């Protein structure tokens, strides 16, 4: 008795499916096609592509061009701009309209080795060197860059006299900031490369 009821249900299902209007079928089909097409993506010349399937990385360093990936939620792609050089201003902000700079005294005041206080602002230039690290290894890589640079300054200035820092030591400071901060950043695997630090 039960079995026949089940076959009855299945038969009813088949009949009902046939009764679905053509329009509905077309709609469903087009949704499926669009869904499949959503997997097409373009990697620009200043980007690199990374594809994750169900969350795990399957392809990285995808070269510029048009590619296909299985649509969401199976695969998804990230395209970070790896070639652009980004800038970070530490200790000051640039007003967009007037192009003036405002400094944040809490950040820029620093102690030198002979217990003097100087104000220091830095302009960092950096780029992404390993996209998978940049995207997936650390929570906020830019914050880490800022913090690592600030730590580097504290360490460097704490060893110098104020005269040295203001005059002959400038080049040394810039080089050391890059070295020390980069070491920290690589330690955390941020995938970021610091290119220059200008005072």
């Amino acid at each position: 008795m039960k079995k026949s009821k089940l076959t009855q249900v299945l038969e009813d299902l088949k009949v009902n499916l046939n009764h679905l209007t053509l329009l509905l079928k077309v709609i469903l089909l087009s949704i499926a096609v669009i869904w499949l097409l959503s997997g097409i993506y373009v990697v620009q010349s200043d980007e690199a592509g990374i594809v994750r399937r169900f969350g795990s990385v399957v392809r990285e360093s995808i070269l510029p061009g048009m590619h296909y990936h299985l649509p969401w939620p199976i695969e998804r792609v990230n395209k970070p701009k790896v070639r652009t050089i980004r800038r970070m201003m530490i200790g000051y902000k640039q007003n967009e309209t007037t192009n003036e700079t405002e400094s944040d005294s809490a950040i820029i005041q620093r102690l030198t080795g002979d217990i003097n206080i100087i104000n220091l602002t830095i302009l960092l230039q950096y780029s992404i060197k390993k996209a998978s690290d940049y995207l997936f290894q650390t929570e906020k890589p830019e914050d880490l860059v800022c913090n690592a640079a600030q730590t580097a300054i504290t360490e460097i200035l704490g060893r110098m006299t104020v005269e040295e820092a203001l005059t002959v030591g400038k080049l040394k400071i810039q080089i050391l900031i890059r070295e020390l901060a980069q070491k920290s950043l690589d330690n955390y695997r941020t995938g970021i490369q610091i290119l220059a630090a200008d005072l």
Partner: protein
Amino acid sequence: MRTKLLWILLPIAIFIYLISTTLFCIDETEIGLVCQFGRPVRVITEPGLKLKLPAPIQTKILFDKRVLIYDPTPSEFLTSDKQNIVIDVYVCWRITDPLRFFQTMGNRRGAELRLEDLVKAEVGAALGNCPLFTLVSHKEGEMDLGKIMAEITKRSDQRAIEHYGIKILDVRIKRLNFPGENMPSVFARMWAERERIATRYRSEGQEEAAKIRAEAEKQKQIILSEAYRKAEGLKGAGDAEATRIYAQAFKRDPEFYEFIRTLQSYDKFLDEKTTIILPGDSKLLQLLEKGPPEVSHEKE
């Protein structure tokens, strides 16, 4: 018709529900914990598509696998030589044992509260053992901030792994500075030092200036006396020459010479106030008595 529709939709709905609760993804940035009736049974570290028994038999909890930053507000600490300084640290940490983490900290917010306590304690302890010059000093070998930070990191990490299932990668000091109340005295000291240096430069400069002036004075004297010597020499030579020329001129006509000289001496001693008494036949008076002598015109 209605019940037929129900018969179709219900199994589909149940199917979808089962799928959504059995299959799940672990992202590259996540770490998963599967709990069975609330009891943890499985830790999943590899990303990808995973399977579990449907809820409510098994549930999943996801944690962030990445390096996380904890950046507390700066706080004041005391060094071993009783100096107050304000320290701004940042902490890099990650969850290594999600089970332990879940049991002890629960979530991110709970973790940060515990981290605050832990890190503050470690930093305070480390700084309380160091005098100020190990943090800030331009003398060789005194300042060792890097080592202090490494020490703090190591000790924090040991406590964290033991109790909380997380790994502390780095505790670093972003900034250290004196608290606001101490600033005026620091600035005053800086000002005094600059003053001192400026005064020293000025006095050095003045010393140099005095030296240069004395030297110049000396040179001036030398040049002047040299010039005077030359001038006198030239004068003397000029006088001698003049005398020679005079002598030559007068030699040509001694009588004229005598005439001129007499007139010159009259000019000198004859004036209204002086009374001169001379013998009558003095040569000097001859001119007054007799008049100028005859002039011979051939002489030239």
